[in-house]
């Protein structure tokens, strides 16, 4: 079996999957996120975002800090609905 280079563990995306998406015109990270699901799993990009930036900077031959990142969305970590529904104190959320 061919070894896989996994970039995003939540959505099971390999380097190849992301390269295909970029070649199909989804190279803007906002679009890449929506097309492949990278950064949208339970980690919300905490594990995969740096990998993706590295990959894009290599593909575009540009410095990593020049890759614009997608908007960061709350909450910081997955939060149970019951906790929010119960009107928990804000600092606990």
């Amino acid at each position, binding site marked *: 079996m061919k070894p896989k280079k996994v970039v995003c563990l939540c959505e099971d995306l390999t380097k190849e999957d992301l390269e295909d998406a970029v070649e199909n015109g989804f190279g*803007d990270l*906002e679009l890449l996120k929506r*097309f492949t699901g990278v950064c949208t799993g339970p980690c919300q990009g905490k594990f995969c975002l740096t990998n993706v930036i590295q990959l894009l900077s290599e593909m575009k031959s540009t410095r990593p800090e020049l890759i614009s990142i997608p908007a960061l*969305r709350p*909450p910081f970590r*997955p939060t149970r609905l019951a906790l929010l*529904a119960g*009107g928990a104190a804000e600092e606990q959320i």
Partner: protein
Amino acid sequence: MVPLKSKYRVAIIGGGVQGLSLAYNLAKLGERDVVVFEKGYIGSGASTRNGGLIRTAWFSQEVCTLMNESVQVWEHLSEELAFNVMYTQRGSFIVAGTEPQMEFCKEMVDLHTSWGIHTRLLDSGEAMKLIPCFNEREVRGGIYDKKGGIARHDAVVWAYARAASHLGVAIFPQTEVQAIHLEDGHVRSVKIPQGEVQADTVVNAAGGHSKHVAQMVGVELPTRPVRWEAMVTEPIKPYLNPYVRWPKGELYVSQTSRGEIVAGVDSHEASSMDLRCSLEFIKRVSAALSSIFPSLGRLALLRQWAGLISISDDGCPILGSIPKVDGFILDCGWYIGFATAPIAGRMLARNILESKMPKLIEPFRYSRFAEGRQISEDSNSEKMTHLARLDAH
């Protein structure tokens, strides 16, 4: 990417689902000299921030008819655009929790039937059979719309963009229109960072920014931008099939094909261009979700976001030409814009090419406000609020 020309027949401002559907339909009808200017990435506004909901059951004949015609396009859209938009016709259900609400729903179903919309009144047993995860105490029955469904909003935007490009439409993302120039009361050109681009027809399909774009030609639209928020949970196995609207909790919710629960509650904010997320919102949605679907309490919220919709004075879209500014076409005032984009693009393309308003969108003309022919003020969102308030009886 195609090179930018100095002149086009039609320039569309806004590369969202409405602007792209219009561009595609213009090209399909033979007008391929079309350019789309999008300020951000394509679909970056409300088009990819909405809940992806499609339905036919609404509160006025004009809107129901438009939605019903749109569903007929949705049913073959993936085929037509050669791109899977992940459309599933899983039905939609509006919950009634009290007897007065049931009576109201019955009246609505009778109206729908008289308009040719196929909805059905379900009693509590039928509703529980349809959606077993409901909290039974909150459900007396409701309106079932078997033509309702969902589609993947991003895929729809890409499908239209791709199909339009194949037909020769030029699409320029990250290109903001900064001004529109007129000559003798006719649009002449739009100004973008690269310079002036001439156009015979300029279309305002700028969504939450459409009021601002109309001001560029001195027109004050009777609309206001409003922040609308949404949220998504972690994915779970198939749990909820139809799209559910629960008026008491002001909630709308569906489960995507990926398994995530996507939900929102109505916004009561005044005019706003604010795109920040609020804690208040996720508290409201979580409370509503765990009341109507108690087993969802243990589910984790993954992400929340906000988008802008544009609400007109009668809650309905504003389409077509306006007096005094020849060549300026409105495709604005959408908050049912995702569900109706397939039909609206088709009808507006005909309006532009034939200079005649198709009957289906004629009620949504701009001049209705001056003529006093607004679509009955309390016909849309107001009726939903009314439905929720019947609860107090």
